[in-house]
């Protein structure tokens, strides 16, 4: 008899989790390079004893379980900023950055130059090039980054471009297995190999990749979640009423 309330509970826990996912997506609506998450639910059939010998056999009780949050790795919209140190990736690849915890990957190409001339992220993590960090000299100006990610500058009075390195672009065979690390970075698990990105991946200078969260979709999911949650609550309520009336009528001892 309590099955109904337990099933309701499992649904409410799952929906609460989904709301957390939606809330995180909406909170990151304007976060550069953010990738949206979506929840994936699964049915869980309870292995309890049941009777199959009747004409109408008992059905197994099925609960809901949140099994996974899927990373939506689709391309976010590109916004032109004109800033030479804003770089967006058009295609399936990530920038590699060096954090104190090790190498991390990001789609957020908003870079800065630090006091030592290194190309860094807004957090101060060094952006990795094919041959280590990309370092600018004090008299470098007119930074340009081409479609393959090669960084070149005009240095001092020179009129010819001098190369300062090439942005390291990495791809993954199973990008869904990347783990969000906060700060717009992803960690690759040990058995997910990072390989250099294909030639088709293009780098766009002077643009940033916005969050790929779609407001309309998230709002629809929000309505769906809150309605489902309220429905579950009223179901629990009627189940509780049912039990209450059962207890009341059954406990009436005939005199």
């Amino acid at each position, binding site marked *: 008899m309590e099955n109904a309330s337990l099933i309701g509970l499992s649904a409410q826990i799952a929906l609460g989790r989904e709301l957390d*996912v939606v809330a995180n997506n909406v909170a990151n609506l304007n976060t550069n390079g953010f990738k949206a998450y979506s929840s994936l639910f699964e049915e869980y059939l309870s292995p309890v004893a049941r009777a199959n010998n009747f004409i109408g056999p008992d059905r197994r009780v099925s609960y809901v379980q949140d099994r996974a949050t899927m990373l939506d790795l689709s391309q976010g919209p590109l916004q032109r900023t004109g800033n030479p140190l804003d770089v967006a990736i058009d295609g399936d690849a990530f920038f590699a950055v060096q954090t104190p915890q090790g190498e991390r990957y990001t789609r957020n190409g908003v870079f800065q130059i630090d006091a030592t001339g290194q190309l860094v992220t807004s957090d101060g993590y060094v952006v990795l090039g094919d041959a280590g960090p990309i370092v600018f000299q004090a008299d470098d100006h007119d930074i340009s980054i081409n479609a393959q990610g090669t960084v070149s500058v005009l240095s001092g009075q020179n009129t010819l471009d001098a190369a300062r390195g090439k942005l390291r672009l990495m791809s993954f065979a199973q990008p869904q297995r990347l*783990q969000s690390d906060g700060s717009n970075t992803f960690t690759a698990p040990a058995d997910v190999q990072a390989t250099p990105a294909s030639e088709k991946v293009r780098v766009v200078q002077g643009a940033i990749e916005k969050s790929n969260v779609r407001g309309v979709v998230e709002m629809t999911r*929000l309505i769906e979640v809150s309605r489902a949650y309220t429905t579950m609550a009223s179901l629990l*309520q009627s189940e509780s009423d049912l039990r209450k009336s059962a207890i009341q009528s059954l406990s009436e001892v005939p005199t």
Partner: protein
Amino acid sequence: MRALYTAASGMAAQETAVQVISNNIANLRTTGYKKQRAEFEDLLYEHVRRVGTQTTDQGNVLPVGVDIGTGVKTVATPRMMGPGSPSQTGNPLDLMIRGDGFFKIQMPDGTFAYTRDGSFNLDGQGRLVTNSGNLVQPGITFPANASQISVNQNGQVSVVLPGQTNPTIVGQLDVTRFINPVGLQPVGDNLYVETPASGAAQDGVPNTNGAGNILQGNLEAANVDAVTEISDLISAQRAYEMNSKVVSASDQMLQAVSNLSR
């Protein structure tokens, strides 16, 4: 219900964005102003089911896990150091740097500050000062009877003295560069000061070694683009609204829960 706090972090971030945008719009007509931009990052994740966990002894691994994010944070409000467009004034003491670099200003306490605002004036002693009366470095004093002030591309300041036909050089303006100008700290009054992040100041002659050249009779307008700011404002405002919807949805769900125990 964590969604409530996640959405609150989103609202706080969008509020910061609106604040930055409003400061940009307020400084739409400030000489030498460089626009700022609010940048966000996602907060920590709770890894409820870690991706890659081995689920069976046969070596099946979870292809995707359950990662629940906890919101957003403002990470930086960097300045966009792109050039502003020149606005011609015809005033010989209005200077503009075309390219990289800053004018060096001496503050009353002897420290140095840097600015892109080249609307200079002369004080009672004929010294070149900013609109707030702070000395432009290196100090240039104009003779009382000088006329036809001219500043060339390389920052050389010359005047014509009475009874002479050839100009006399009275000083040389410097342009100071930083390897990371975004790391300068704004102190108001269009001034910035050096920080460990900006790197050391490199004084140099205009038009050499990457430093910009001087354009006389022009001021650098703010590099704020009104259209971009307004579209950013709209997107920030809508994002704020959506976050508030998440707050009310979590509220409704909590209400449904509290109504359970009547």
